[in-house]
């Protein structure tokens, strides 16, 4: 297997894909948002229980490739307990990683997604769950898509 592909499908990603964390509807959710990648058919719904400005609980549901599912799963583990501002900052860091491949200074599981940057067509898979989560935080009813033309 090529180095690129090994980088893309890291152990962390395969693990989250096989055993997704926080998967399923959240009965206590007070926010929900849905994301679509129309071309691939990837889908992701994110459920939040916001406690003030803080994410008290979070889950996701959906279908898609290993990258999108693992990313959504990992995201839920990362965002739980965070404020909106912290969530946005984490997303910015994640976006930097998947688009440039530059790993963050602190050690973090999200670094596993650095390999995505050599597969530009997959960036939208990696960010789908994050977009839905940020939309849910904003209370935005419009379905998220990571396929807007300028993304």
């Amino acid at each position, binding site marked *: 297997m090529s180095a690129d*592909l090994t980088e893309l499908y890291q152990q962390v990603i395969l693990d989250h894909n096989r055993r997704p964390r926080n998967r399923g509807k959240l009965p206590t959710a007070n926010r929900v948002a849905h994301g679509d990648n129309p*071309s*691939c058919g990837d*889908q992701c719904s994110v459920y939040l229980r916001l406690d003030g400005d803080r994410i008290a609980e979070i889950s996701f549901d959906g279908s*898609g490739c290993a990258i999108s599912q693992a990313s959504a799963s990992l995201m839920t583990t990362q965002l739980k307990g965070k404020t909106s501002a912290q969530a946005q900052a984490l997303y910015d860091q994640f976006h930097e990683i998947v688009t440039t491949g530059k790993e963050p200074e602190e050690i973090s599981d999200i670094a596993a997604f650095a390999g995505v940057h050599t597969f530009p067509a*997959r960036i939208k*898979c990696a960010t789908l769950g994050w977009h839905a989560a940020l939309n849910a935080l904003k209370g935005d009813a419009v379905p998220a898509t990571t396929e807007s033309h300028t993304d």
Partner: protein
Amino acid sequence: MPTWNNIRADFPILHQQVNGKPLVYLDNGATSQKPRAVIDALVHYYERDNSNVHRGLHALSMRATDAYEGARTRIATFLHAADPAEIIFTRGTTESINIVARSFATRLKAGDVILTTEMEHHSNLVPWQQAAKASGATLRYVSVLGANAEGGLDLAALDQLLTPQVKVFAFTHISNTLGTINPVAELCRRARAVGAITVIDAAQSVGHAPLDVQAIGCDYLAFSGHKMCGPTGIGVLYGRRALLEKLAPDETGGGMVVNVTYEGATWKPAPERFEAGTPNVAGAIGLGVACDYLDALDRAAIERHDHALARLAYEKLSTLPGIRLLGPTGERGGLVSFAFPDVHAHDVVTFADEDGVALRGGHHCNQPLMRKLGLTSTTRASFYVYNTAEEIDVLVASMRRTLKFFVG
């Protein structure tokens, strides 16, 4: 399986490596590759004859017009159409269907029914949804039978669906997702019996098998050049002359008018009435040459070749653990669509790409059918004249490797 001597030499694009492996192009359902003859025709046109058509009296303009109209005649012959005036050049299948659907949008009324099937490509589905919405007509679907859609269209239910309220029946010839070959002549015959106009989406069939619009008995037929060795940006709407003569124009502008005043305009007859503005001249000429190329190979032989490859792929793939194969178990068009329970199609396609194998993964512009089958996506391998049995072995090996990585 018919083969042609050295056919791969005709397709320059095939002779490259992808990710260090020889390219195995199995994405022909999306678009086909182009033989040297078609590429050369484009170059020749731009280097010798390029000019605007129809309105010119100088040498280049006459040459360009002759070549453009010659392509129209060539395509009429290719389809066994009664008259070259029945061939309207469009950008492709999607535009062709939109033209017909738009014309119905203004003519249908509440109570009328548009009939289509559950296996249509979005391009033969959404335009009819829009026509129904605009006119107040009702859209109905012929069901697809079987958990893996192996049963094809529910022809038994057709008599019930084909009421005199059905004004138009639009269906695909070959499903781009399932490989199902629909009995188009029979569908046309039964539609005609209730006075419904038939529209065939032939995107996956023209260029893959002999086709005779008069024998089929359809009213309209749509296809794209790019899926049959032709250039991008060119396609055809075939329409029976008697219908085209009554049909109002779709787009308007230069080239399709007889007399224009500041108050209004009158229209030329078909096909010009439906070709406003400068057409894709080079594209049409290239498509004509693609017809020559395919006829030289013999379309009956192409059909045998594609079907044999599809059968072979179906058999070999069915040995893979957990694989779910869609569509007919017997005779099928030149493609195979499948899913694995634990590996998403995009991961499959990414792994295949590493092996040089070009596949398509996704909903194949067929979301509602996917949903009905409980799937969000499949992986599709689709074949054409230059594909070989050896390439199917490469495909299957690549699938095995992928499964091993993800499932163990």
